[in-house]
C-alpha cells in the first residue's frame, strides 16, 4: 500500500486522490484538500490570532504559531499552483486576530500571493471575530456555498446544508456533497505492545468530507468512525487511508 508502482518518486509529499461525484479531490498532508479542476485549495479552521487572543487574556503564549501555519500554506500553494483558496470557516480565532500585531504575518503572507483569490465561508468563530479587513482582499460569504455538485460549509451539521428529504419529498435525488470543517477530527490508532497514536485526519462519508483543522494550535476531538466512512490520516508528510477497524 505504501509502494504503489505508479508512485512518482520525485514528490516529497504523498498526496491522495479521490473521485467524488465525478469531481477529483486531492487530500494533502498539509491538512488541506484540492480541487484540481478549478485549481482551488481548501482549508478549514485556520484560527489566526489564537495566541494573541490568549495573551490578551493574560495567558502568556509565545508567537510563531500563525507564521508557521502560513509557511505550510505557502509550500502547498507553490506545489499546487492554486488560483483560489477557499477557507471553510474559523479563519480568525477571535476579534484579536484582526488586530495589528496578529495581522502582520498575515499581511506579509497576502503580499506574497497577490493574485490568489481568497474566499471565506463564515464559521462560528468568524461570527464573533467579524470579517477580515478589506486590505486582505478576502471575500466572505455565509454558509452554504454551492459550486457545481459540491457544497461548502463550516459546520457539517449546519441546518441549511443537511438535506431534509422529508420536506422536499425528493429522496431519490442525491444529497449535495458537502465539504466542511469545524470538528477538527483526529483518529486514534492502537496496536501490539500497547502502542497508541493520534493523527489528524480527513473523514469521508457518503455525502460529506470533513477536513482536519489547518491550524496546528488547536485541540481536537477523537473521531468515532461510522461503518460507511473512510478515514484518511496524516502521517508526517503522507496521507494514508486507514483500513476498517
Amino acid at each position, binding site marked *: 500500500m505504501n509502494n504503489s508502482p505508479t508512485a512518482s518518486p520525485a514528490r516529497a509529499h504523498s498526496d491522495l486522490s479521490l473521485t467524488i461525484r465525478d469531481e477529483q479531490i*486531492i487530500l494533502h498532508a498539509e491538512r488541506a484538500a484540492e480541487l484540481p479542476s478549478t485549481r482551488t485549495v481548501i482549508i478549514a479552521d485556520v484560527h489566526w490570532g489564537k495566541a494573541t*487572543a490568549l495573551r490578551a487574556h493574560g*495567558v502568556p503564549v509565545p*508567537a510563531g504559531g500563525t507564521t508557521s501555519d502560513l509557511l505550510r500554506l505557502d509550500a502547498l500553494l507553490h506545489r499546487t499552483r492554486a488560483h483560489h483558496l477557499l477557507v471553510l470557516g474559523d479563519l480568525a480565532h477571535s476579534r484579536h486576530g484582526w488586530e495589528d500585531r496578529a495581522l502582520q504575518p498575515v499581511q506579509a503572507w497576502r503580499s506574497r500571493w497577490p493574485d490568489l483569490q481568497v474566499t471565506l465561508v463564515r464559521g462560528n468563530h468568524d461570527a464573533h471575530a467579524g470579517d477580515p479587513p478589506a486590505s486582505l482582499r478576502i471575500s466572505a460569504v455565509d454558509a452554504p456555498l454551492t459550486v457545481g455538485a459540491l457544497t461548502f460549509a463550516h459546520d457539517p451539521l449546519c441546518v441549511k446544508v443537511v438535506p431534509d428529504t422529508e420536506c422536499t419529498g425528493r429522496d431519490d435525488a442525491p444529497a449535495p456533497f458537502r465539504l466542511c470543517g469545524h470538528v477538527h477530527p483526529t483518529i486514534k490508532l492502537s496496536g501490539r*505492545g*500497547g*502502542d497508541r*497514536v493520534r493523527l489528524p485526519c480527513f473523514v469521508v462519508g457518503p455525502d460529506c468530507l470533513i477536513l482536519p483543522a489547518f491550524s496546528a494550535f488547536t485541540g481536537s476531538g477523537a473521531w468515532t468512525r461510522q461503518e460507511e466512512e473512510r478515514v484518511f490520516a496524516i502521517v508526517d508528510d503522507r496521507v494514508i487511508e486507514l*483500513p476498517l477497524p
Partner: protein
Amino acid sequence: MTTVRRSARRRAPKSEPADPLAAWFASRGWTPFAFQREVWEAYARGESGLIHAATGTGKTYAAWLGPVAEALQEAATHTATAVRTTIRSKPVNGAELPANTRPARSPRASVRSAADKLRVLWITPLRALAADTERALLEPVQALGLPWTVESRTGDTKASLRQKQRDRLPTALVTTPESLTLMLCRQDHAELFSNLRCVVVDEWHELLSTKRGAQTELALARLRAIVPTLRTWGLSATLGNLEVARDTLLGLRASSRNAADPPAPALPNSGRLVRGLVPKEIIVESLVPETMDRFPWSGHLNVKLLPQVLERLERAQSAIVFTNTRSQCELWFQSICTARPDWFEFTAIHHGSLDFAQRRSVEDGLRSGRFRIVVSTSSLDLGVDFSPVDVVMQIGSPKGVARLLQRAGRSGHSPGRVSRIVCVPTNALELVEVSAARDAMRANAIESRDPVDRPLDLLVQHLVTLALGGGFTAAGALAELRTTRAYAALTREEFDWAIDFATRGGDTLQAYPEYARLVLQDDRYTVRDAQVARRHVLNIGTIVSDAAIAVRFLTGGRIGTVEESFIARLTPGDVFLFSGRALEFVRVRDLVAWVRKAKSMAHAIPRWAGARMPLSTELAAAVRDTLESARLGVYNTPELESVRPLLELQAERSVIPRPDELLIERCETRDGFHLFIYPFEGRLVHEGLAALFAYRIAQLAPITFTFACNDYGFDLMSPELAPLEEAIESGLLAPAHLLHDITQSLNAAELARRQFREIARVAGLIFSGFPGQQKSMKQVQASSGLLFDVLTRFDPDNLLLHQAQREVLERQLEASRIGRVLTRLSASAVRVIDVERPTPLAFPLLVDRTREKLSTEKLADRVRRMTAQMEKRTGASREVVLRPVR
C-alpha cells in the same frame, strides 16, 4: 486528649506565665505535660519552634496557650495603665520596613487599639479542620475570661462572615495557606498583620513537601517582614528529618549574605524542637484470608475480607475504617451497608470530596456517638483531638510507616493505653507489605519529607500577590524571597526571568504590550488591570488540585465536588458511586456536574486520578527484607504464612530474587513482548527507571515501548522482542550519564508534558474561568498539553518548561534516588528468566491499564504496523485506494 493525672515534675517559678493555665488544666482534671510547659516557657521568652508527636496528644494546647498566657499577663499589667495600648499600637515603624511593606493607613486603624487586632494566625492544611480547631481554641479562651474573638476564614467560610472580616479580623484567626495568601493580596495587609504575635502552622508535615508548603513559607516571610519579632510554632507528626522540617518552617535570617548572587547560604532562624509524648505501644494486626485460592493477586477494589471486617466491627463501640482512595472508601461503605442494612443508621462515610456540611455532621456524629462506624480516606487522618475510637481498621497496605503510626494513633488515645490497628489486605502482595510495615515500625524507620526547591510557577504567582498587596521593588522582593528555604538558592537570573514572565510573558513576548500582569512604575511593580487581579485571586487556590466540579442533583441539593479529570471520563448515563449513593451522570455545565439518583445499583466505581499511593523508600526496603526471609523459607508472621502459597508459586515459575540480584522475567503474551523488571524500590523510582531503561534499550534499535509500574517493579512491553542482553552488555544499569539519559528519556516519554499541567495552572497559564462565566471564556482556554507543545516549539528556553522537567526529575522520579538505586543494581547480579506464564509478581503489572510510552521508531513505521494489524484482525484486507496523482 491530655487526661493524665500525673503531677507536674517540677514546680513552675512564680513569675511563670503558665500559672493560670495550670489552674485551667486543674479545673478540667488535667495536669500539663512537661512538653507543653516547655513550649509555653519558650514562647514567653520569644522563641519559635516545632512540636512533634502523634495526633491527639495535646500539641494544640501546647502551641495555643503560650499566646493566651501572654495576653493574660498583658491584661493584668494593662488594667493598671490602660493608656499604654494606644501608644504601643505601632510595634513596627514604617521606616524600618522594606519599601514595599509600608502599610496603607486606614482611617480606622488609629481609632482601634492594638489589643483587639489580629494577634494569632493558626494555619491548617485542611479547611475541614478549621471549625474543629476554632472550637478547641475558643474553649480555654472563654474559660480564662479573655475578651478574644476566634474565627476561621477558609473557602468554606460564609460570605457574610467574610464580609465582616474584611472590615475587622478577629483576635485569632484559623485559616488555610490559600486564604492567607489571599489576604496578602490586600493593599492594607501590612496594617492587618501589624499586631501579629504568633503564627501556628498545624500539621506542618502535611504541607512540608508540597507547593502549598512553599506557599506557606512565602507567606511567613511576608509576615516576618511586617513583624520581625513574630514567633512561629509548627505542629508535626514525627518525621525522619525533623530538623529540616523546623528550619523550613522558621525560615532563614535576613542578612547581607543572601543579597549576593549567587546567594551565600544563610543561617536558619533559631528555634527549638520539642518532642511531645513518647509514642505508646502500637499493635499491628491483619485479617488474613483463610485460603489463598480465591484471593486476588492484584488490584485494590475487592471486599473478600468483608465478613471478617464485619465481625470486628460488630464488637466495636466506635470504629474508623481507613481506606487509601475515595473509590475504596465508597466501595467499602456500600458493602458494609449492603451486608448489614441494620447498621445503616450509625454508619457514615467521610472523604475530602464530600460537601462540607456532610463532613461536619459525620465528625460531630462520631464524637457524639451517633455514628459508630465511619469509613474514611485520609480526610480523617488529620484533625484536632478527635475522640479516640475502639477499633481502627486499615483497608489495603498503609504504604508508609508514618501513615501506619498516624492511623493507629486514632485508637486508644489515653496515655498508657495500647493503640491497635487492624490491616485488611486487598490483594495478596499487600500481606507482604503489612508484614514489612510492622518490621519497619519496630525498627523506627520513619519516612522523611523533603521540602520543595524554588518552584518557579509559584514564584510567578507570588510576585503577582506581592504586586497586588501594595507593590514591591525587585531588590526588596528578592531579599525577602531568599529568607525562605524554598527560594534561598534562587538566582538573580531566575528571579529576573520570573519578573519578566509576569510583566511580559518572557522574552518571546516582548513585542506584545497587550499581555501584561505586572506594571513597573518608579521601581515598583504593581497591578493596574482589575481583570488581572480577579483572575489571580481565583487562581490562588489552584495549587491543591485541578478544577473542582460541584456535584448537584437535578432537583437541587449539593453533594460535594469531584475533579474535572474524573468527570471528563464520564458520559451521560454513566452510574458512579459517590457519597454512598449510586448517581447517574446527566451533564456538566458551568463547573457543575448534574446528577440524578440511579435507578439500578451499577458496579461503576469512580476511578479517581492519581489515586495510587506509592510505597515509601523505608517500606520498600522493608519489603525487600521480608521477601528475603520468605526466600530463605522463614515465614514468621501470620501475613507471610498466609501469602506463602503465592510466594512458593513465584519461586516455582521463576524465583524470589535475592537482595543482591535484579530479577528480569521475559515472556510473550497476546499483547506483545514483556520485560518484567523488579527493583523493589517503590513506584516513583520505577517510573523513572522504566523510562530510563526503555530509552537505553531503544538507543540500540528503533523500538516502541509502553510501560506500567507498581511498587515492586515495572513492565516494558514492545511489539517486537527487545534486545535485552545487548542492552545489559552496553550498560543498561550503569550509573554513568544518568542525568543525560534520564532527561532524554523523560522527554521521550512525555513525562514532562504531563507534569506541565500543574505548573501551567499555578503559574496562571491555564485559567478555569470566573464562576458563572465559563462559556464566554471558552475561546481563551487552551489545554496544558497544547501550551506545552507551543512553548516547546516557539519558546524552548521558557523556564516553566525547565521546571516541568526538574519537577519530574526531582520530585516525580526522585533522580538522586534513582542514582543510588542504579549504583545498587549495577553491583547486583542480573538474573534473566524466560517464563511461560506471568508470575505472581508479574500479574499486577500485566493487568495495569495505565501505561506510558517511549518510542524511537518513525511515526510512519508505527502507523504501518498498526494498520497492518488492523487488516489482519479484520481478515480480508479491504482494497486500499492510494493513487498517486499527477
